[in-house]
């Protein structure tokens, strides 16, 4: 049975009817049309579905949508500014060559953002830890780590 919830999605209040068995990922992708958040496994093992909820990186595939009521959710679509200017992390990922097939990248960037929001100057271990739950098969992670370092180093 559908229930109504209100929450903040990428800076805007949304009021939606959801089924209890929906995951947040299902809602974002299949109902709300925000397909930037990816499903790589559905079991919380690959991190492709990472979004930020109240400042924390979360696997949206293991998150019942009803739980977001009253919370604030940021997805990859909420990162660039309204006029399309890329977020510094997005820019760094582009410029540092951190993107290949790109399927893992939205989740990867959300994990990195949660880290940088929390820590001004993360160590290399902090960076690796922050994305250890985000699998990538193309890049060997080296340039992804470089990109995150660049953003931290530039502030």
């Amino acid at each position, binding site marked *: 049975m559908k229930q109504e919830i209100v929450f903040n999605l990428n800076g805007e209040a949304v009021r939606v009817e959801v089924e209890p068995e929906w995951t947040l990922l299902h809602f974002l*992708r299949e109902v709300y049309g*925000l*397909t*930037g*958040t*990816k*499903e*790589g*496994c*559905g*079991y919380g*093992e*690959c991190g*492709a579905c990472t979004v930020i909820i109240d400042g924390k990186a979360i696997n949206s595939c293991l998150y019942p949508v009803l739980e977001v009521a009253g919370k604030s959710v940021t*997805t*990859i*679509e909420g*990162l*660039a500014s309204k006029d399309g200017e*890329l977020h510094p*992390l*997005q820019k760094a*990922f*582009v*410029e*540092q*060559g951190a*993107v*290949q*097939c*790109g*399927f*893992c*990248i*939205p989740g990867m*960037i959300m994990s990195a953002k949660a880290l940088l929001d929390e820590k001004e100057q993360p160590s290399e271990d902090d*960076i*690796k*830890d922050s*994305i*250890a*739950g*985000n*699998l*990538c*098969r*193309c*890049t*060997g*992670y*080296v*340039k*992804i*780590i470089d990109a995150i370092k660049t953003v931290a180093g530039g502030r």
Partner: protein
Amino acid sequence: MDGLQIIGKRIPKRDAPQKVTGSAVYIQDLKIPGMLYGKILYSKYPHARILKLDTSKAEKLPGVRAVVTATDIPATFRIGVMKDNPPLKTGKVLSTRDEIVAIAATTPEIAEEALSLIDVEYEELPGIFDPLEAMKEGAPLIHEEMKSNVLKMPWKLVCGDVEAAKKESAFIVEDTFSTPWVTHCCLGTSGCIAQFDTNNNLTMYSNTQIPSLAQNDYIDALAAFGLKNKRVRIVQSVIGGGFGSKLDTYAYEYIAILLARKTRKPVKIIFSREEEFFATSPRQCTITKISHGCDKEGKLTFREIDMILDNGAYTSWGATTPSVMMMPISSLYKVPNIKYVAKCVYTNNTYSQAMRGYGNPQATFAIESSLDQLAEKAGIDPYELRLKNANEPGEITPQHFKITSCGMKECIDEVVKRLNWKEKKGKGGNRGVGMASLIHVGGGARVYKSDGCGTIIKMDDFGKVDVFTGSTDIGQGSETIIAQIVAEVLGISIDDVNVVNNDTDVCPWDVGAHASRTTFVAGNSALGAAKKIKAQILEVAAKLLEEDPASLDIKNGVVFSTKNNEKNTPLGKALRKLHYTAGGKMLMAEYFYDPANENFDKEFKGNLSVSYAYGAHGVEVEVDKETGQVKILNYIAAHDVGKAINPLLLEGQIYGGGLQGIGYALGEKMIYEKGRLMNGNFLDYKMPTAKDVPPVQAVIIESDEQDGPFGAKGIGEPGLVPTAPAIANAIYDAVGVRIKDLPITPEKILKALKEKEGSTK
């Protein structure tokens, strides 16, 4: 090469902005109005007879729009390299990935529920899961009609006289090495959407890495399904990883076509992660018996290899990987006498496909491990043995490869220098260094009759160009490389080059993203087309500027006279003039590049590729002798790439390949128990994470390949080829045990250490 504006620059991948904002559309993200969702019921057993199949309950479930079984396709229709694989099975199932029934429904959940309503009654048959068992006399036959479990693909390469060389060798080593099933782990799972128009022409939205060949496969299938002379259009969405997994067409694609035809609706099939693990075709396991010899000075005298490959239940490109294994076997280092025999064997396991390296990683693991054994026996430093036998430019190898550019020695030297090899080798303390080299095709590979790729370039009114290429971007960045090449030739900004590479209706023909061929072949094709259109532009501008075309050039989008800079015109202006003049014309050029490489002859000899890529990897490890755990302290990956067209993307290929190689060496294995995959998820399949990245250096060696676009060679696959043997060799140097069976787990190391202790006591 002086004066290059765009080639050699670190230019970001052009589709990266779409990917970092989440706006890139992958097959998972694509929806078409009215679309249905397809799901597949797989066999419960690895080997069984289907006694009864009842889909009536599923058909009645509200929301179900179609059910297809083997009865929906002609009994003789088969797919795959040996045409041994019906897309839907009846009678006998041969593996747990055998497709029996498929459903199309209005939602994926309904389709899933419908699957659970299907009744199948099986009679389980004894299965064969070990290729050695399958080869035995009297073993149950997987494909009864084939009369044998050994594939009728007799791989055999003989160069020189191995037996005579054995007699003359001062040192000989012999051993057996084995490698496991491993899988691509594309983060974006497989999927497609099949859609028919009212005239029964098919559009396939797909993430294939072989659009032109897939088109051919589907046309054949439609003909078999009674739809003759139909058009097939393939539209590639953004591809979430390839690595060889999308190099063939698979049953699920034909099932989507059948369901779409039956329902007259677009039908989407997307694999779950679980399906991606068990129902896609991985790199096969191999058992390799190898012997190597050298003379007193350490010159290699012969190499002999006998190999068994688990083909699995059906045949895809995996069965042809021995053709590429022949390359390192015959031509990695100078070895005058070669003998190689390989057998692919049917079992009731999954079936094998290409995966980055196309057999080269399996062969190189055996070769480079064995070479270290030989060095030890001959009392030569493994580095010196490698250097002494290294390939060189101008060489013609026993398999008739013509080596053009070759930076193998430089790569080996870089590894030695950067690892501080001479200080660290053989120093004990549970630390050790190891190295291994590689050869791979770097100038296309003529595995089909053609190794070609087409390019069309069209100029618009504003001096901008559209480049239509047959090549596919699976994440490696070919669209960026092609744009760089075209922009460089035309003297325009890369921002003025639009690359279209995902639609067979407009893109020219190409054999696919494989064999590390795209930069070389598609790059040369783009280069040819760009040169052609440049000549046309200069001719047009020559009339306008009243100059000789030979004295004109283009820079920053302006055509100018090299004699008199004042004589110039912006490119757009010249083109507009052309369009707006009576009897005008438009500028367009096409170019088809098919490298001058050769198909193998009947003896499997011939110059497979126009050029060969070389590399060497070196690694320093530390082994915990109490737990068997291996820690990589330093990793050097040196690659001869001809010319780095884009070092930024090139490094990405090396780092990415390297970590895949580390996974292959130390952790990855598809664990099959009686034909059933036991670790089909990311928790149990040990794919490296960011925390597993060691300190790594990518070293680029430029050897300027004469036939490459701006001197470039391929680099897609080499990054993972020598990783596993380099690590195995380093572990041996550290603790004196040689692990011959990948992956090198702590448990295997401990066991070997224990055996070693036992034997020295």
